[in-house]
C-alpha cells in the first residue's frame, strides 16, 4: 500500500479567494496579511494579520498580550478566555478580523493602571493555581461569571466555571477564590477602574 503524506497533493474543492470574491459582492480580504485595528483593554492597537489568524494568536504573537494561553486551540479548555463586548469567549475560536470594532478585554486589564481586580488576589489567597498555565483563563472566566452572577452559591460556581480545564488540579482553590472574590466585589473593594475595557 502506498500512502501519501500530510502535505502531498491536496486537492482543493473550494473556490480560490479570488474566485470567491468575483462571485460575491462581499469584500474579500487576504490571503496575505491585512491591516487591522483591535481595541484591546480600551486601547486601539494596529497590526497586520492574515484573515485566518485567530484572535488568540494575534494577541499572543502580534500584540504581546500573552496572558491568554494556547492549549487546546479548539474551544475546549478555556485557557485563552477573554471577554469580548461583555461576553466570555474563547479567543481561539474567534478570527482576529472579526474582533475589530469590539471591546476586547484580556487578563492584563485586571491589573492595569495600578488597580487590581479582587479576583486576582482571591486566586492568590486560595492557592487557586499551581503551574499557572490555565490560571489566566480561569480568572477571566471567573470575572465574566461574577459580572453576571454577583452573588453565586457554591453550586453555581461549579457550574459557571465548567468551561475551563486544569491539569495540576487546582479546582478546590478556584471554587474558594471565586466565592471570596464575589464577597470582595459586593464590598466594592478595589473594583473601580479595574476594568478599563
Amino acid at each position, binding site marked *: 500500500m502506498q500512502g501519501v503524506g500530510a502535505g502531498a497533493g491536496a486537492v482543493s474543492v473550494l473556490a480560490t479567494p479570488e474566485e470567491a470574491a468575483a462571485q460575491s459582492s462581499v469584500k474579500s480580504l487576504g490571503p496575505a496579511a491585512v491591516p487591522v485595528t483591535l481595541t484591546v483593554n480600551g486601547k486601539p492597537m494596529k497590526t497586520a494579520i492574515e484573515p485566518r489568524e485567530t484572535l488568540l494568536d494575534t494577541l499572543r504573537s502580534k500584540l504581546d498580550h500573552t496572558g491568554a494561553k494556547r492549549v487546546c486551540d479548539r474551544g475546549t479548555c478555556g485557557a485563552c478566555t477573554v471577554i469580548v463586548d461583555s461576553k466570555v469567549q474563547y479567543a481561539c475560536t474567534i478570527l482576529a478580523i472579526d474582533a475589530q470594532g469590539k471591546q476586547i478585554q484580556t487578563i492584563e486589564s485586571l491589573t492595569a493602571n495600578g488597580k487590581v481586580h479582587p479576583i486576582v488576589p482571591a486566586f492568590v489567597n486560595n492557592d487557586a493555581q499551581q*503551574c499557572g498555565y490555565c490560571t489566566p483563563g480561569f480568572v477571566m472566566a471567573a470575572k465574566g461569571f461574577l459580572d453576571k452572577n454577583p452573588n453565586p452559591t457554591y453550586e453555581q460556581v461549579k457550574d459557571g466555571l465548567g468551561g475551563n480545564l486544569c491539569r495540576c488540579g487546582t479546582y478546590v482553590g478556584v471554587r474558594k477564590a471565586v466565592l471570596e472574590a464575589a464577597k470582595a466585589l459586593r464590598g466594592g473593594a478595589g473594583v473601580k477602574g479595574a476594568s478599563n475595557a
Partner: protein
Amino acid sequence: MPNYSWPPMNERKVMGKPHSRLDGFAKSSGRAKYPSDVNREGMLFGAILTSPHAHCTIQSINTSEAEKMPGVSAIRVTAPAGTEIQWAGAEIAWVAADTEQHAIDAMRAIQVQYRALPHFVSEERKSQAGTRAKPAGEQTTGDVDEALKAADAVAEGYYAIPVLAHSCLEPHGQVIEWKGDRMEYWPSSQAVSTVAGDLAQQLKIPASQIHVSMDYMGGGFGSKFPSDIWGAECARLSKDSGGKAVKLFLDRATELTIAGVRPSAYANIKVGGKKDGAITVWQSESWATGGFTGGGMPPIPYIYTGIPNRRLNHAAISVNAGGARAWRAPNHQQACFLTFAAIEDFAAKIHMDPAEVLVKNLGFTARAPLYERQIRLAQEMAEWKKLWHPRGDSGKSHIKRGLGIAMSTWGGAGHPSECRVKINPDGSVELEQGTQDLGVGTRTVVAMVAAETLGLTVPDIKVKIGDNSYPVSGPSGGSTTVGGVSSSTRKAAVHALEELFQKVAPSLKADPANLEAVGGKIQVKGDPSKSIGWKAACQKLGVSSISATGKNDPKNPMGLNTQGAGGVQIADVSVDTETGVVKMNRVVAVADCGLVINPKTAESQVLGGVIMNICGALMEERVMDETLGRVLNADMEFYKLSGIKDIGEIVVHMDVHPDNDKRGVIGLGEPAAISTIAAISNAVANAIGVRVPRVPLSPDHVLTALYGKNMERSRA
C-alpha cells in the same frame, strides 16, 4: 561543623505557617512569562511534519515546493528516504518561517511518499501480539500451587488500566536564539540545570555556550526532562536562519501523541487466603506497553510485598505508538490499582470489610504501624463505619453509593542541590539556585527556609531560580525537589549567617558562636538587650557582600531530608446503574509527610494528586484506532480531563506531628497521586456489586460490567 538542624517545631517563625506562593500574583494576573510566551524581535515560528502512519518507510521526501513558500527561512529533514517510522506522529521534517501560518503552510507543502507497513497498537489483545510480546521470566517465591489449593478462598480477576497522556497544558517546546556562538534557550522544562547539557550533547557544542532561562513552566508531570529532538531541531532552524529566534512548540495533537504517556497495565490475578482475611498467595500474569519498547512490570503486589507465596509473570508488549515518559509516580498507580482491586475482590469473596483485610495483612508491608494509624484515621474521616456496606448491598435505588480504600508508598528524598545565599551591605538578601518551580511552590519554600534561618520575613528574600548560571540543582522528578532545595538553602543560609556573625560579633562584644538571628535582629543568644538590627548589622560588611553556598548531598542529608512516605485514600462515590455514570462524592486523603515547610502549597500538592487521578479513574484513556494505528483522541474534547464540577469534595489530612517532623523534609507530590484510582475502582465495586475491570470507570465500562454487554473475562 555548623549546626544545620531545623529549628524545633514549636520555635519556627516562618516554616510550618501557611504562606501564599510568591509567584501567585504574577500567575493570576497573566503577567508571568512562560517559555511559550517569549516573543523576540524578528522571531520565527517552527512547524513539524509528522508521520500519518503508525509503521512505514519513507520512500521519498521532496522539500523543493515548500522552500519556495512565503516566509520560509529554513527546512530540515530528519527522517530521509529509507527511514523506518515506528509510530504515527514521529517527526520527519522541520520548517521555520516568519509566521506560524507560513510555517504550517510550508510544512504541508513538503511531499512525502510513504510505504505503509503492518502495525500493532492494541496491547490489551496480548494473544495477538505474537513476537511483539517479550516475556520477562517467571518470579516465584514459596509454593504457589500448594497455597492456592490450601486457601479457603481464591479471588480471580482481570484488571486493566490504560495508557494515559501527560497532557501538559503548556506543550513541549522552546524558543531558541543564537547570539554569535552563544545560545539563549527558553525551554519548558523540569530540569533547568541539566537541560543545557542534554541539548549540547545533541548539538555537539560545549554546554557552556547555552544559557537557559525559565521563570515559569506550564506542567511537566515527569515528561519534560530532556531537551528532545525538537530542542535540537529548533536550535538548528535558528542557526540556519542566521541565528534569529525560533519558537517551536508542539501543537495539541502532537503533544498528546508523542510527548509522553504513562504505560498501561493488564493482569489476570489470583489472591488466596484464609477465611479470617489472612492472605497466603498471589499469582499474577501481567502485560503492559509504554510504546515501541514495551512496558515493564509494575511493582506488584504493591506494598504487600511480603505475601509468602507469589508467582509473577509479565510480558512487555511493543506497539507502534508514541513512547512512555516518567509519569508522576511511575508505575505506582498501575501497581496500586492491580493490587488493591485484587485484594478488595478477595475481601468481598470472604465477605470481609476490605479495610480489615488490609490491616490484618500489614505484616507483609514495610510500615505496619504507620499504615494502621492512617487507615483508621482515613476511615474516621470518611465515615467508613456509617457508610461502608458489604459489596453490592446498597439499596434498591438505581443510584448506588459505595466506599473504597487503597494505600500508597513513595521515596521522596532530596536530590543533589546547591544554593547560594548573598547578604548585601544594604541588608538585602538574594538566593540563587538553578532549580525550577513546576507549580509546586519551590520559590516560596526556599524563601521561607532562608527567612527562617536568617530571622527575617519572606518578602526580605529575593529568590532567583530558573537560570542555569545559578548553582546547580537537580531536575524535578520523583518528588525530590523540596528535600533537595530546602536542605541546600538551609546550609547556604547558615553559612552566610556565620560570616555575618563574624563581622558583627565585635560590636556586640560577643563570641560569634553565641549569636542568633531572630525577628530581624542579630542578638546574643537569649539576651535581646544585646542586639543589633539586621540592616545595621549588614552595614558592617562595608562594601563587600557575603556570598555563601550550601549543598544537599543525598548520601548524607544530615537529617534535613529523608525518604519514605506512606498514604491512605478512601473514595466515596455514587453510581447510576441506569446510565453508568460515576459521581464523586468525596475523597479522603491521609498524606504522610515529614516536616512540612509550607502547609498551603503542600495541601495543594495533595489536592492536585487526587484530582489528577480522579481524571485517571473516570475519564482519561488514550484510544488507538486499530486500523489506522493512530491516536483517536489526540485533542482535549475526547482526551478527557475532569472539570471543576467532576471532582466532588476532597478532604486532605496532612499527617503533621512531631514524630513525622523529626524525619525532616520528604517530597509529597507523588505519594498523593497514587492510590485515588484504586480507591475509586474499589468504591464502584462496593456500590454496584461487581468489579469494573477496566479503568477508566466510564459509563461504557460500568454498564458492560453490570450487564455483561460484550463482556469478556479477559481478552488475552
